[in-house]
């Protein structure tokens, strides 16, 4: 059966492998401007950007013959948990023939619901549960390797001597990982991919600024949604640290109740889970400030409820801990040039700030 799923960063490489192992044919739609236009056309006006992009990719996937779409659910109060239901209603209303299966995070008895849905998907091709667990582990391993590589890229990019080399090497690294099929192969591929990245010519004498990226998970992870913020920052000579990754997210929200440290750090400012990554955004800003980061960039879809609450509280964190925060709200109207200009200005500001702090340190030293 032709199966599609939400496209998000590099994760499609791992999901495609899992689906192929389960005997399905994955339909991968990389979002483009056309996808977004299509999605926006059929979405409610104030639905968030990820909703529109995903609807667009689903519609294009259905055009390519996908009959089944697999996605994850949620328990709210973020809207993302209800995407599946509304997407299905819109697809039905358009008279298209596709089914969306939503995997809900297990709570109490609903674990049976989750198992049932997995059972449905794997029994289509008569795959045994034991095999499924094996394949799932493989997919998970690949997902982790992909995350690791991406974090590695962020570390290397600010040192590259030729602009764009790292991005090219990253694409090569992805191809290497895509080919790996077994446990050993993935381990080897990870090493090989790292070597490719290490070979990028670098100037290690630089002292890059450090910026943390916080915000809503989809727009943080999908470069199409955030106009390649991480690449732009990296090429401006900034070492980027991403607070969320897919493996971190799924393991946390599926197995534990969330990253306890981050939430604890947020407590002086917000003592209530508000859904999505609202409380994480605040906690992570506090942690970035404590770890000596120069600044934080908050990414959120326009009208994202939890991030608006976070944005309302962040000025207080900025004031208390002295860490500058730039908030970028993204929607289908956002232009790349606008984002770039704002990022450049923000980076200039941080450079100034660091320079002044250095001068002051020197003055203090002279006075002593």
């Amino acid at each position, binding site marked *: 059966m032709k199966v599609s799923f939400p496209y998000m960063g590099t994760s499609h490489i791992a999901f495609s492998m899992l689906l192929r192992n389960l005997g399905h044919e994955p339909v991968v739609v990389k979002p483009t401007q056309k996808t977004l236009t299509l999605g926006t056309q059929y979405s*409610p006006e104030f639905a968030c950007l990820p909703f529109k992009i995903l609807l667009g990719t689903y519609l294009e996937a259905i055009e390519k013959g996908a009959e089944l779409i697999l996605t994850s659910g949620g328990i*709210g109060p973020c809207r993302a948990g209800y995407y599946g*239901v509304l997407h299905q209603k819109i697809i039905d209303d358009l008279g298209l023939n596709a089914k969306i299966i939503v995997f809900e995070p297990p709570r109490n008895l609903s674990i049976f619901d989750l198992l049932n849905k997995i059972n449905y998907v794997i029994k289509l091709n008569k795959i045994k549960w034991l095999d499924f667990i094996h394949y799932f582990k493989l997919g998970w391993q690949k997902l982790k390797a992909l995350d690791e590589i991406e974090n590695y890229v962020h570390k290397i990019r600010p040192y590259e001597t030729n602009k764009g080399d790292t991005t090219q090497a990253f694409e090569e690294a992805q191809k290497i990982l895509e080919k790996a099929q077994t446990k050993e192969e993935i381990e080897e591929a990870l090493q090989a991919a790292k070597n490719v990245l290490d070979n990028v010519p670098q100037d290690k004498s630089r002292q890059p600024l450090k910026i943390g990226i916080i915000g809503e998970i989809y727009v943080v992870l999908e470069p199409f949604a955030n106009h390649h913020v991480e690449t732009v920052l990296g090429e401006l000579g900034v070492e980027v640290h991403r607070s969320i990754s897919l493996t971190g997210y799924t393991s946390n929200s599926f197995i534990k109740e969330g990253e306890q440290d981050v939430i604890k750090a947020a407590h002086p*400012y917000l003592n*209530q889970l508000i859904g999505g990554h609202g409380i994480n955004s605040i906690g992570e800003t506090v942690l970035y400030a404590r770890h000596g980061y120069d600044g934080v960039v908050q990414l959120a879809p326009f009208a994202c*409820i939890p991030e608006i609450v*976070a944005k309302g509280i962040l000025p*207080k964190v900025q004031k208390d801990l002295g860490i500058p925060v730039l908030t970028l709200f993204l929607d289908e109207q956002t232009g790349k040039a606008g984002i770039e200009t704002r990022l450049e200005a923000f980076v200039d500001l941080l450079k100034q700030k660091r320079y002044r702090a250095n001068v002051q340190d020197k003055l203090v030293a002279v006075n002593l």
Partner: protein
Amino acid sequence: MAKIGFPKALYYYLYYPFWQEFFTNLGHDMIVSSSTSKAILDLGVKETVNDACLPIKLFHGHVGDLASKVDVIFIPRMVSVRKFATETFCPKFLGLPDMVHASMEDLPPVIEEKIDLSKSPLELWRVCQRIGKEFGHSQWQINNAYWHAKKVQHRFFKSMENGLTAEKAMTGEKKKYTKDKNNLKLAFLGYPYLVYDNFINVNSLELLEKMDVEIKTVEMVPAKKLLAQRKKLPKDLFWNFSNRVMHSCLYYLDDEKVDGIVHVTAFGCGPDAMVDKMMELESKNRGEVPFLTLSLDEHTGNAGVATRLEAFVDMLKIRREKQ
């Protein structure tokens, strides 16, 4: 005895009677902020984070209006009011006290007790105990005030079910609408802070009454019937008010048939992006009931809304004549 301020926004329209009775029974003065006006709106817009929706901005305005008049401001953190799957209030309600603290300075002390009634049936009683103790009242006094408040709140809900709007039910008005069978019946659905705030919705209710339309709101649906609509949805929504609006929409489509549905929503409202589309699709699929979305923001003008409502009602009248 303290002067306690209550912002006339958001949950005011559903839960004020309870807190009014509770605090006055304990001997305090309850002071409600002035009705929404241009001045309050401007104050709110000035204080609030710029991406927030209109109701949140207005809430800040109401708090600002109270700041100089009272000893304490009551801003409970509304998390949930019933045990219902994973239902809570909108995230903006959950972070409300923190947002107010982060953006407004020089406020009098704030009571920000967390109200999370999904925990246990006794939770409201416990919350009341905690608040009462802080003011130094004895348990007996608090119990007494609690039971009186419960009774008042129950009466309030019942009179809304009997067809009164929130404001009329609060003032204890008894008069019902004169029910003429030939009148158009219109479901005017939306969150209570939009439907009952005459400034935001530019007097829509009055306008519709003048056009001899019988208005039905979310609160006029009997509680049990409202809850019974739940099984018609594949998955519960996460937000209390949204569930209520969605369920009432289904009720007016299936059980108590109406001629048309108007959905009032605030510009940029997160949950409503989902709810509005669902309501639109349901009205289409359950008997092609005419559906109008009225989106309100700080620039909404009287004439624009009036024209749209008049046109909608005219259309409904023509439709009925044809049938």
